[in-house]
């Protein structure tokens, strides 16, 4: 190992000490998964290591964040595309379970009244279990879209940009996810 490489390693190590925690927290806020956030930060530093010659700026933190940002976008796009094929094929069948051909509610799926139960929901341990069960039943692509909606400070148009999808695609996914989640809760909680 020559001296130049050793210097680079030292520099990278000092950046790790200074910035890795913040980078991780940022990646975690967007992916809500510690392991994925860790992988993305590792990828970021590996990429920085190899691209160090092209780093001319005075602000390593901003540079690392810009690499991480691209890694996160790649991650979502890849994840999104991988499952997109399935969701597309399911689309027609999927709508058929809730709506008739004329797009009116299927009688058995019509939302009834939940009103009597609303107040107790948030503190109810059993309800939370059912909620998590129902969340897990969603195709991963749908729950990715949902989690982004609730966790991101970024608004709809920005999320679509991150995912590389159209706005119409985004709300259609949310529609299907909510429809399925609502029906699952209906069956396992409100009617149970």
């Amino acid at each position, binding site marked *: 190992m020559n001296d130049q490489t050793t210097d680079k390693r030292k520099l990278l190590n000092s950046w790790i000490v200074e910035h890795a925690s913040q980078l991780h927290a940022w990646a975690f806020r967007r992916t809500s998964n510690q392991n994925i956030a860790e992988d993305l930060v590792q990828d970021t530093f590996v990429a920085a290591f190899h691209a160090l010659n092209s780093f001319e700026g005075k602000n390593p933190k901003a540079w690392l964040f810009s690499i991480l940002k691209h890694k996160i976008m790649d991650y979502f796009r890849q994840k999104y595309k991988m499952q997109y094929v399935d969701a597309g094929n399911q689309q027609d069948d999927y709508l058929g379970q809730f*709506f008739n051909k004329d797009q009116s509610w299927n009688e058995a799926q019509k939302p009834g009244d*939940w009103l009597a139960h609303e107040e107790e929901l948030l503190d109810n341990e059993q309800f939370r279990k059912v909620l998590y069960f129902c969340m897990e039943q969603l195709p991963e692509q749908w729950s990715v879209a949902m989690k982004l909606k609730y966790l991101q400070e970024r608004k709809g148009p920005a*999320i679509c940009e991150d995912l590389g999808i159209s706005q119409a695609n985004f709300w259609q996914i949310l529609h299907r996810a909510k429809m399925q*989640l609502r029906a699952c809760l209906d069956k396992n909680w409100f009617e149970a």
Partner: protein
Amino acid sequence: MKKIMNTLMLSCYKATELIEKKSVFILSPVEKAQLYLHTRVCDACRNYQKQSKLLDEVLEQELKALHEENISEDQNTENQRIDRLKGKLDSEKFS
């Protein structure tokens, strides 16, 4: 009657889609009017709208709480992660 309703107004499918669209984007004035008219006369979609909003609140709180829980990890976990990161970088050959 159902057929007339569907031509004059949104279908239930479209109405519920707009309800979800509204939670992330701004509806156009026409869409707002269509949704308003539809939910005035359709009990099922009115229920859906109420429940959809309720689920938004519950999920937002729940996911944020889960997130906070995960983020407040101990120093030890963080140090281990940084060690793994350094190890990963050490194993990288400079090209």
